[in-house]
């Protein structure tokens, strides 16, 4: 074991003594300097370009003005957003008429109420409409009147065959147009 240890020490001291010798540093210097100069130069070009494009932001008053302008833009944007959201909120509570229909101007109060209900559609559910007794009477009166007028019209049409034929033709055409549409 001691012998082995002595052999180890002998070989190691031989290796330690025989330091590897670098014949010349010239080649290493040349290659290293070439590489670092390329990196340095490309770094310079880049920093020069950045300075050219953005160097003006380092000027004091320019920078302050830009900051103020950015802050103003942000405030304007926030205000606008608030206005838009408020407007959307108001519009969503309003009745939207999406149906086109020829109507006569409502005369009585009940007619106005019923027209509003009809135009509002789902936004105006039936059970929220409150009618007084007088309004109910008015409603019934107008339905009765309508029925009488309709009966008169029917008799008139039945009495005049030519008129009946004309009306039927017009109805057919009108239905056809509707279908085409």
């Amino acid at each position, binding site marked *: 074991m001691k012998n082995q240890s002595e052999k*180890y020490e002998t070989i190691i001291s*031989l290796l330690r003594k*025989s330091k*590897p010798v*670098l014949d010349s540093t010239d080649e290493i210097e040349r290659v290293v300097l070439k*590489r*670092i100069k390329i990196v340095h130069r490309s770094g310079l070009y880049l920093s020069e370009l950045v300075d050219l494009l953005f160097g003006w932001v380092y000027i004091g008053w320019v920078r302050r003005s830009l900051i103020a302008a950015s802050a103003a833009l942000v405030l304007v944007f926030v205000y606008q957003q608030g206005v838009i959201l408020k407007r959307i909120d108001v519009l969503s509570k309003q009745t939207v008429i999406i149906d086109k229909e020829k109507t006569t101007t409502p005369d009585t109060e009940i007619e106005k109420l019923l027209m509003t209900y009809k135009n509002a559609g789902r936004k105006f559910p039936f059970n929220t409409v409150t009618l007084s007794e007088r309004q109910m009477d008015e409603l019934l009166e107008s339905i009765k009147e309508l029925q009488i007028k309709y009966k008169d019209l029917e008799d008139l049409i039945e009495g005049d065959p030519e008129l009946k034929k004309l009306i039927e033709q017009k109805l057919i055409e009108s239905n056809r147009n509707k279908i085409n549409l």
Partner: protein
Amino acid sequence: MTDIQLIEECRGGNFNNFRKLVTSTSPFAYSVAYRMLGDEDQAKDVVQETMVTIWQKLNKIKSAEVYKTWIYRIVVNKCYDQMRKRKRNPEFVADEKTWEIIAGKFSEGPSATLENGETSKIIGVLTDKLSPRQKAVFVLSDLEGMSNDEISEITGISKSAVKANLYYARKSISEKIGKYL
């Protein structure tokens, strides 16, 4: 001018002083790299890479001690990279002739010296079964004469790990010497 003074000059982009730094640093960087890799060209490549890395990180070097540790650390890490590449393409093959060289030098006694080529073959044959880390610890400790503290700083492993790796490396090499000599 000391290394640290040269470094101060180099931070300002002084290529001439960096050339001097390369000249003063390359020999001992080469010694470690050559002992670890056993190949002249690969060792020179490692030295070049090391110096380029040093140039890029000049700002981080604050003292001569830090500089020296840095050099060794970069050299060792670059050697690990080379060894990893080599594992994919193993080149070195131990042969009987190397043992004859060792036996011959052994019998010459204390006056024996080795050339670069002989050094690389002997180190290669003695350490071919060691892991890269064990080899690094062996080279830094027994061949370069560094303390366990310094090796721990360079390799980034704990002192106890350094001792363990060194023990195993010495044991492996002693067994080989005992077997062949």
